[in-house]
């Protein structure tokens, strides 16, 4: 069972390349989303391995909150967009 968790973690290790290198903000954001969903999968596996049903709640929380970061990031993207528009109109 724990081999499955290990394989999932390795898939995160591959994703780290995109987080570190980017190049765009959206690449990084999508990798964080990938981390979130892989994290959910790992938590589900771990809850089986350790026989800890409470980890299912953590997985639920992580799945829902994966949506929180993009909501804030949209503000940042909008700001960048508006600023670049101001720059072109000047």
């Amino acid at each position, binding site marked *: 069972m724990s081999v499955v968790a290990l394989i999932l973690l390795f898939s995160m290790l591959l994703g780290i390349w995109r987080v570190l290198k980017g190049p765009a903000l959206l690449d990084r*954001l999508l990798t964080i989303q990938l981390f979130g969903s892989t994290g959910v999968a790992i938590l589900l596996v771990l809850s089986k391995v350790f026989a800890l049903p409470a980890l299912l709640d*953590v997985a639920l*929380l992580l799945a*829902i909150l994966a949506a929180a970061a993009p909501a804030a990031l*949209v503000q940042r993207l*909008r700001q960048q967009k508006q600023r670049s528009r101001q720059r072109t109109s000047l």
Partner: protein
Amino acid sequence: MALLLFDLVLCALLLLLAGAAMLSRSLTQAVTLFIAFGVMMALAWARLKAPDLALAEAAIGAGLTGALCFTALVRYAKQPAYPQPALWRPLTFIGLVTALLLASLSQIPLQPSSAIPALVQQHLPQSGVSHPVTAVLLNFRAWDTLLELLVLLLALLGARQAPGDLPRYRGWSLSISWSRLLSPLLLLVSGYLLWRGAAAPGGAFQAGALLASGLVILRLNQQLSWLSWRHFWVRMLVLGGLLAFVLAGAVSLLLQDLGAVWLSWPQSIAGAVILIVESFATLAIAVTLTLLVVGEPKPEVADA
């Protein structure tokens, strides 16, 4: 074997993300790396079989901190150009903090004392709840939790002294409708966590943090403009956690015999008292964190 390898990879990932977040040149990059770090940290707590901490870390690290850092970034008119401080200053600071941390490390006993968990287990039936962590937080060491609520309130009052002007951008219609879909789910799950806290990992803090993430998402999409410090009842909600706590302490002091300890609940109503205190604390934590993260609603910036 596989678990050992899992631990090694997880530690490597944590160190890599932490180092990259600190050394990153752009603040936006650092924030995204930090959010990824929060997800990994939640996994690490889950690996250490500490679901209470994993819940808190998932709610704070993966949810709120990212929103907080991004809104802070939006507040800057442009990327701040830091004046380069002399090198010895940060080095002294880092050295000092590291020394303090190492010194405190020696205070931690290598083997956790077995007496305290046994003591908690022994008194668990009198606490009114069946989850030991909740029993410690809301009954045996309720004073600590009360002071934590006070710290949160002080943080909000302190942050209010530094008014920021967060420019508002009208949310894209997709993100608005999506946040509306998400909010009932968040409400449901935070109520579930609050209720679960009596018997399993969960409780006021996790539920409050989750609720706060939902409120922050809605506020970032220009909803809930009524959630403002101007309104009397919002202030009452923020104070409500502390008020309910102190009132419950006073009432249970009156109900008990002379010589009863402050903030110890009478055994017969302990469960109900804990639930009431936790409910008010959840609302207070949620509203306080939301106001801390997104501040006051401002007229939005028009952009097509």
